[in-house]
């Protein structure tokens, strides 16, 4: 095997659960040779101050993202469906909290 450059280490996206009961949240990315190493590196790079109780690493190449050009098409149709929100409905005050 030739000496591989650092660029041969694939990119991983890192997700950290900050505390039990909360979701894993994307916090950044890093290069690592494999998943086990990516986890080790994520621990050192992203959780030096107890920022997390659990880490996910995902190969960046495995993520499918929506295209920014499709933003209007994808998300605008929700804008006029205000009846999906509780504030759309008027309830008499004497009913109290609902």
């Amino acid at each position, binding site marked *: *095997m030739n000496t591989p*450059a*650092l660029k041969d280490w694939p990119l991983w996206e890192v997700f950290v659960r900050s505390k039990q009961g909360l979701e894993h949240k994307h916090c*950044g990315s890093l290069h690592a*040779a*494999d998943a086990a190493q990516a986890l080790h590196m994520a621990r050192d790079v992203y959780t030096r101050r107890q920022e997390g109780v659990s880490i996910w690493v995902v190969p960046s190449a495995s993520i499918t*993202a929506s295209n920014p050009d499709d933003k209007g098409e994808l998300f605008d149709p929700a804008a006029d469906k205000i009846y999906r929100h509780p504030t759309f409905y008027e309830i008499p005050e004497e009913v109290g909290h609902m």
Partner: protein
Amino acid sequence: MYTQAMDIPDESGNPGGKKLSVVPPPQSEQEAAFEARIDADGRIEPQDWMPEAYRKTLVRQISQHAHSEIVGMLPEGNWISRAPSLKRKAILIAKVQDEGGHGLYLYSAAETLGTSRGDMIDGLHSGKAKYSSIFNYPTLNWADVGVIGWLVDGAAIMNQIPLCRCSYGPYARAMIRVCKEESFHQRQGYEALLVMMKGSEAQRRMVQDAVNRLWWKCLAMFGPPDADSPHSAQGMRWGIKRISNDELRQKFIDATVPQAKVLGVTLPDPDLKWNEERGHHDYGQIDWQEFWNTVEGNGPCNKERLATRVKAHKDGQWVRDAALAHAQKQRARADKEAA
């Protein structure tokens, strides 16, 4: 930690060192949408369309910033084995590790712009890319380590807080993470100096000597005066830069003067005095010739820093090779078992 060099042209992000002109009127629908989002103080994300010059400016700035974090580990790293107590040693290791982490956050942010880690590292190691010139000065005694925390990190914090609002999302997010960690760096340095100032006369002299040597270099970290900053106007227009070099420098001086008083040191500038009318401190002339000379590679430690960096990278090659070989072997074994 450390971004001075944001306005420093180099050969990595802007080949030929062409100066960026002030924004021309929007050319296309995409460009108009980009400009509108900038005007509305919105954020740009990696997948969004952006002008080539915006991308290049960010690649140059973020990679210079990342390189500064990485090279910034060296002057302090020299003192890990000579820290005066186990406590100070543990603190210093944590700080140097943070700097490495900051470099990694920033390299990742730059990579979202389409540049590769390998190319950025090549740029640093070949001397094409710049990094903060403050690290091209030696750390001669233990007080230098304290002064780096207090003043160098202090100056860096001034520079970095506005970058948390940078128009480019990944850079702004990396900076928020960096700034959260940076405050410990400044406070540990200042505290280490306070301890020395309560020690012997010789220790107090060491602190004053370190302040004398590093003060002017810290002021230069904010970059050339606004009038001589070729990229500043464009950077401000794009929301990459939020506060000018001179304004940040002034904020830093005003914040530092009372801290120096509490510490019991003087700042080596006979022209430094409070100006009632301006509501700021006046200060003397910075030696810009020395600054540019160091940026050009002729500072006292430029060669040593780069050589140390390149050697560390080369010496680590077998580790990177081994990790990759291991990963390949594991994958081959898993494939075989699956078959």
